[in-house]
């Protein structure tokens, strides 16, 4: 196992650039960075504030050979992009980094102020020099993480003392997920109506999503044909989101970037998890788990018996 900087330098010998993270001088947390040279790679970091899924940038870099530092969940996105032929396997090198569970940096800063100093070492979390319960500030998606081993690895690097295996979430469970699971259909309808009343249609959910590779020609925004209403009434925003959710069926790997990016905190991962569960149940398919797979939405036959293991 190599250290991160050595691995990036090695990958740079065969690629044009490496997508990774460096420490932002203003805030002290990880910020996405692009390394083109070995000198630049000296600034690379990997820690529990590397929340972003950098695979989102790959479809825009099709003409380049790209290395990417990836958490296990990010690596699933790379796999699915290869499966969907958005990224050529030969043009991407995955530098796999083990993950102890990412911190919800946004939540920490909402509570303690933007730029509050975050130190997370050996599983102890300090904010502005005071210890706080780490499990209270773990990104919600990490609480039910199942993506412990990356499917494709070109270089494996050391983590911050975490050598792989399930993330360390301090025994915390996902309260919101449990409450949502227990809701009736009517309760869910009311829940989403309330949630989407806050939606501002900034499309951060779409733009941060590695699998939303339609990018600039997204159906959520079309006026002709007129698939979605332009108002921000809850039903129009819900409709726009449902279009996105259904287009991601069999693609979404559950990386949770949509939820993390939402500026008004709509828990979109609940929708994505539900859809992921249905796809698994219907097609026995888990996006991002098999680089040789053919996605169910590209192989569907009308004769398939969806519910009987067909």
């Amino acid at each position, binding site marked *: 196992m190599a250290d991160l900087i050595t691995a990036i330098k090695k990958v740079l010998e065969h690629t044009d650039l490496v997508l990774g993270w460096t420490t932002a001088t*203003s805030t002290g947390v990880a910020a996405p960075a692009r390394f083109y040279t070995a000198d630049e790679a000296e600034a690379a970091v990997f820690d529990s504030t590397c929340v972003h899924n950098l695979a989102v940038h790959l479809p825009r870099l099709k003409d380049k050979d790209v290395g990417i530092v990836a958490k296990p969940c990010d690596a699933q996105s790379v796999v699915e992009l290869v499966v969907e032929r958005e990224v050529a396997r030969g043009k991407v090198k995955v530098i796999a980094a083990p993950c102890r569970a990412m911190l919800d940096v946004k939540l920490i800063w*909402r509570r303690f102020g933007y730029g509050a100093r975050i130190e997370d070492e050996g599983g102890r979390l300090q904010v502005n020099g005071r210890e706080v319960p780490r499990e209270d500030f773990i990104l919600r998606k990490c609480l039910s993480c199942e993506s412990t081993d990356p499917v494709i690895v070109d270089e494996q690097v050391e983590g911050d003392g975490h050598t792989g295996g399930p993330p360390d979430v301090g025994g915390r469970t996902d309260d919101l997920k449990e409450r949502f699971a227990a809701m009736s259909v009517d309760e869910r309808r009311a829940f989403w109506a309330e949630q989407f009343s*806050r939606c501002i249609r*900034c*499309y951060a959910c779409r733009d941060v999503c590695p699998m939303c590779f339609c990018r600039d020609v997204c159906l959520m*925004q079309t006026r002709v044909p007129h698939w979605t209403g*332009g108002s921000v009434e809850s039903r129009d925003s819900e409709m726009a989101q449902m279009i996105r959710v259904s287009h991601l069926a069999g693609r979404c790997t559950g990386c949770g970037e949509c939820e993390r990016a939402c*500026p008004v*905190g709509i828990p979109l991962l609940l929708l994505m998890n539900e859809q992921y569960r249905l796809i698994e149940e219907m097609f026995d398919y888990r996006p991002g788990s098999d680089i040789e797979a053919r996605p169910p939405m590209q192989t569907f036959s009308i004769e398939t018996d969806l519910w009987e293991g067909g």
Partner: protein
Amino acid sequence: MGRFIASENIPVLLTRLATDGAVWAPAELPDSGESVVFAPWQPGREVVLDRFTQMSPKELVLPMSERLLSFSYTLTMEGEEMEVESAIPGGHTVIFGARACDAKALVVLDALFHQDPETTWSDTQYRARRDDMTVVTIACVKGTADAACFCSSWENGTAEKAGSDVIIYPVPGGFLAEAVTIRGTEVTGWDMFDDSDQPLPELDTTDVVDFDGLVEKLVTPGVFSDLDFWGRESHKCISCGYCTYGCPTCYCFNIYDEMQGDRQGERCRSWDACMFYNYTVETSGHNPRPTIAHRWRNRLGHKFSYYPANQGETLCTGCGRCIRGCPTGVDIRDILRAAGEHE
């Protein structure tokens, strides 16, 4: 002699303000990842004054989406007749818990939307809302600005009063109130306020960005033509619309018709964002701003060059929302500083 209101009397004040019109105040809604947005206040709903709001109160003068008019066609013996009914908003609005940067932003928007209708033009819907509004601002006293704030880049900084009717300053047990306008004097004269001779608490200061020369520099060929520069500086950006939608001064919109069948419909206006590809794509398919780099060049140019040149105000008040809320950690100050140092 100043005026003081005890914390427990804030609901009394809000109740009184609500008799004049709809009161919007920062609230944390359930299961929202602790995000705070301006929401219609109702008795019993807690007002959050000690954290930043993810959305600015801009939506109360320029709603995210609104109906401008309704239209319908009817066939008569003489041919087709069109009926149009315009939608002019009515009713008083109270913004409670804006920051100085949010209130100033209303004045910045006025420079464009609220010009003298006799001599130039004025936006009917905007004016109707803006003319019938009370703004109660919470002062940024020591320790309440954060690392994303940069309003001290402007002369008045946190002490900016433009756009506010009343400014309330948190002090132990409640708030000192300063009336800025006649409406402010009326409000602070109500009996839930008491006289007080306490001095106003000291205000916070923030990070400072030097805008000197940017008005000209952003349109000179050097930095303007250097698309590699804009590409490097914006490499993190995913081209979503939050920085513009959260911004208290970004005002771009789209106008379109929502049809009900093919004979009647509504003409609507919704926020639009210069960071979207669709924003500039032309009917031919050509897009003059095809990449994120092009869009960033425009965003900075509009805010810090074209708008100041045309309207006399910077299209930014340093509220920091675009920095706090960016899903990929883009900091507009980094790009401004890099542009300032270009060549």
